[in-house]
């Protein structure tokens, strides 16, 4: 990385040097709607940072702001040591940005798309051949290099888009829902690629609607109504929600759901295949009550046990807390 001329001492300076994306009070308005509302985000070098949040929370807007695609209404943002409000163009060589929607040229072939972006990113001609070959095999697209982009499958399109954003070997990657609409196998492959990049030292900021993907990140930020409401490592988020989880396996889950929703201490009931997940204030305390109640109602169950909350439950719990707070 070459973005800093850092020679300062002290732990504070070291931390600042390590920060590659930083926003302070970042805000963006669309007409009369404030989409991003005082967002404070810090991403350090080498992190695989997952940005999660409900639809419309401002994930895409945040990424577009960081890529210099949208004008900042208020606050400040620094990417790769450059102030986005003052020199958005200077940021561009240092980032790779992948849009949520397929944004490559459908009528061009895989190779032509790669080549086009390599030229826009000023990749030297002598490096271009080797780099495109490597990216093609990295993304598993070598057999399809002369196929038109419009004829690729959804997963391959995403991988091609990623390859195009990697062509100039950017130290920072901004990926907007790179796996949405992709089959599970391709999703896994895609994440393997991301992990490899992360291991190679690239800083990655990725948004995702999939909670299992958030679990694969080193740092997770939860964005809600344009604000960052929680930012920590995945385990810390899961542990820090202040609620516990009970898993109930039953054949009569519809009936059980109605019953469980009215029980004291249960804040949320979620269906999960043939089992129900109950968010409760304290699992061990509530287990006997639930057991009694199920027997009273004559609902047979295969198992009932306390379990560790997953990212999904943590997410729902956090969002609900936030909503409750807002209503109050």
């Amino acid at each position, binding site marked *: 990385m070459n973005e800093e001329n850092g020679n300062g001492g002290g732990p504070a300076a070291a931390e600042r040097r390590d920060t590659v994306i930083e926003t302070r009070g970042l805000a963006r308005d*669309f007409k009369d709607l404030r989409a991003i509302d005082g967002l404070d985000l810090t991403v350090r070098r080498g992190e695989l940072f997952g940005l999660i949040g409900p639809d419309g929370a401002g994930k895409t807007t945040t990424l*577009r702001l960081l*890529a*210099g*695609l*949208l*004008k900042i209404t208020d606050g400040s943002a620094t990417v790769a040591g450059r102030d986005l409000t003052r020199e*958005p*163009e200077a940021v*561009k*060589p240092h*980032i790779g*940005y*992948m*849009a949520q*929607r*397929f*944004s*490559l*040229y*459908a*009528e*061009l072939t895989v190779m*032509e798309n790669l*080549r*086009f*972006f390599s*030229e*826009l*990113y*000023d990749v030297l001609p002598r490096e271009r051949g080797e780099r495109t070959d490597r990216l093609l095999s990295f993304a598993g697209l070598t057999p399809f290099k002369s196929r*038109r982009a419009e004829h690729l499958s959804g997963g391959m399109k995403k991988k091609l*888009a990623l390859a*195009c954003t990697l062509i100039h070997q950017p130290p920072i990657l901004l990926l907007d829902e790179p796996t949405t609409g992709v089959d599970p196998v391709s999703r896994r492959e895609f994440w393997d690629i991301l992990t490899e990049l992360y291991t190679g030292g690239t800083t990655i900021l990725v948004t995702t609607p999939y909670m299992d993907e958030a679990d694969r990140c080193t740092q997770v930020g939860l964005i809600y109504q344009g604000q960052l409401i929680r930012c920590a490592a995945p385990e810390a988020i899961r542990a820090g929600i202040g609620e516990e989880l009970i898993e109930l396996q039953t054949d009569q889950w519809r009936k059980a759901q109605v019953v469980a929703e009215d029980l004291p201490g249960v804040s949320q009931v979620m269906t999960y295949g043939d089992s129900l997940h109950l968010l409760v204030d304290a699992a061990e305390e509530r287990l006997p009550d639930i057991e009694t109640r199920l027997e009273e109602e004559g609902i047979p169950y295969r198992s009932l046990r306390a379990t560790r909350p997953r990212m999904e439950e943590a997410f729902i719990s956090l969002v609900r807390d936030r909503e409750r707070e807002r209503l109050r």
Partner: protein
Amino acid sequence: MSLRHLKAVVLKEIRHVLRDRWTFILVLVTPISLLFIMAYALTVDIEDVPIAVMDHDQSAVSRNFIQQLSAGEELDVVARANSLEEVERLLVDGTIKVGVIIQPAFGEYLVGQRGLRLQVIIDGTEPESGTFGMEQVAQRTEAFVVRSLPTGSAEWLRPIELKTRALYNPGLEPRVDLVPGLISMVLGLPALSVALALSREREHGTLEQVLVTPISRADLLVGKMIPYIAIGMINVVAIPIMAMAAFGIPFRGSFGLFFLVSIVFLFAMLSMGTLIGVFMRTQPAALALSFLVIFFPGFFMTGIFYPIAAMPDELQMEAMLLPGTHYAIITRSIFLRAVGLEILWPNVLALAGLGVVFTAVAAFFFKKRLG
């Protein structure tokens, strides 16, 4: 400016055009084939103007007169009417453009030098044929009157003779000057393509991925224009050949000058297209605006058909802001008047200026941002 970026954008745009055979054919051949059709439609020797005659005299003189009217190609007596109502009906349904009513005692009066008992009614709704038909009837009537009257007295009708001579286009054939004029119209099509190409990138979201690259705005816009300028130039070379070979339009000036000035014109025109593409987010909107600012005014305000001198002063100024106005002057001057830069430089300069201004405004408003 980066040549590498420019080249990448140019190649990409050329690929877009080449990849789909239909797009390629359309983009390449619409200008020249359109001009061919329009030139063919302008093959106007106004002749065979349909007229009706109502003969209330039925004398040898009146029959002679009718014969005089129908001699030659210009007028075509398609009906003999028996009443004024019939003449009216024929005019209303468009069967005839001119009605000639020979009143009773037409022959008697003429022979007795007492006057001309003749009424002519013309259709005032058609711009050309009605007026032309009326002129023809008037000319023949005059010739007939002159022959019927004793020598001497007839010359009173035209005491001063006006001899006319049309330079560059002796027959005042509309096609000869309209075809060079209309080149500016058909070269508006590449400008439409550029406007569509830009708005298509927004529509398809492909612009988003390009905007995050370090490419400069000017490279992106100019890179989009170059392929369409090239396609326009192919037409620029082919059009004079077609005009000369198929329609006998003279090309008297310098072809090299025509070629060079056409590059400047295409630059100005495509800058206008680029400006439209920068502001319009969807292709239908880009088409609509192109029609409103390029094609519709192109027909009526660039002096091709309706002379600019006859427009209100305010609109003459506006006409000068349209590249087509200058180019129509230039093409006619090179094709017909055989003049060069020594006379045309203000128009060439205006074209270059318009191109630079349009491109600059486009680049100014084209932020490397979404929304």
